[in-house]
């Protein structure tokens, strides 16, 4: 039987508690991985590995956190996403709420838009 969103969230909470050393109650749907939970770049690899194990899925490099976009001059200028860059991010990450990115488009801010709920939506599409 397919997992419900609540069941997926509960598993993801365990993943984040283990990967980031945070408390259960800190992992809310709206919590940002970097801003609220203190994730650093290496933690994203850790989170990918743990999600694969927890849900029995395969996540290709760049699928969840598509770094390549941010190192591609076609998509970025002076640390900000171009129109093509924004379109590419939307295409690659349809499950993410990018509304907060629209004003500034700074790449440095991008990591901050990633929330626990985005992870839940990503996993739901993977296990569907």
């Amino acid at each position: 039987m397919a997992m419900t969103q609540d069941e997926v969230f509960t598993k993801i909470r365990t993943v984040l508690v283990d990967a980031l050393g945070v408390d259960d109650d800190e992992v809310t749907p709206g919590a940002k991985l970097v801003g609220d939970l203190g994730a650093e770049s290496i933690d994203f690899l850790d989170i990918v590995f743990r999600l694969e194990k927890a849900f029995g899925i395969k996540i290709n490099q760049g699928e969840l956190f598509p770094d390549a976009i941010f190192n591609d001059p076609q998509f970025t200028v002076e640390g900000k996403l171009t129109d093509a860059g924004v379109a590419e991010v939307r295409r690659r990450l349809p499950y993410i709420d990018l509304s907060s990115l629209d004003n500034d488009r700074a790449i440095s801010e991008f990591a901050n838009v990633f929330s626990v709920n985005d992870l839940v939506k990503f996993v739901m599409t993977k296990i569907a």
Partner: protein
Amino acid sequence: MRWIWIDRILELEKAKRCVAIKNVSLAEEVLHDHFPAAPGRPRMPVLPNPLIIEGMAQTAGILVGHANDFAEKVILAKVGRATFTAAAWPGYTLRYTADIERMDSAGASTRGTVDRIDPGTGQTVPLATIELLFSHIDQNRSGLAFPDHNFVFTDQFMDLLRQSGFAVK
């Protein structure tokens, strides 16, 4: 110079498992002050737990490096969880067993156990479980560049493999 905290590799199964041993010796200076005597307590020389983690990092690091024929620079990125249930006394042998859990082009995660073996009786006691995360740093997310030569797997590591009976290119 670089500290090598394992003495010999016993098993090396590509991209799967590495088993190494370390003999804990009173001749090692680090044991002399760890732990020092305290009021009401004599000296208690044991191998410090962080160095046991380093031994596991070297065992698992060789495993991860060997998986790609040492082409990648494998750096310990994170100690996920380390749980210790016994102390590493001098005169005992530690056996490090590292298994790869997950691996891709960016890095690998490993799960390891450390056992303490009494060479007198052969009795084996679980000493620790250690989860580690390694990064292939040339594939790092930030795009940082590192020197071309592999400064991780130095001659000391290659000598260790060779002396343990494993073919090294």
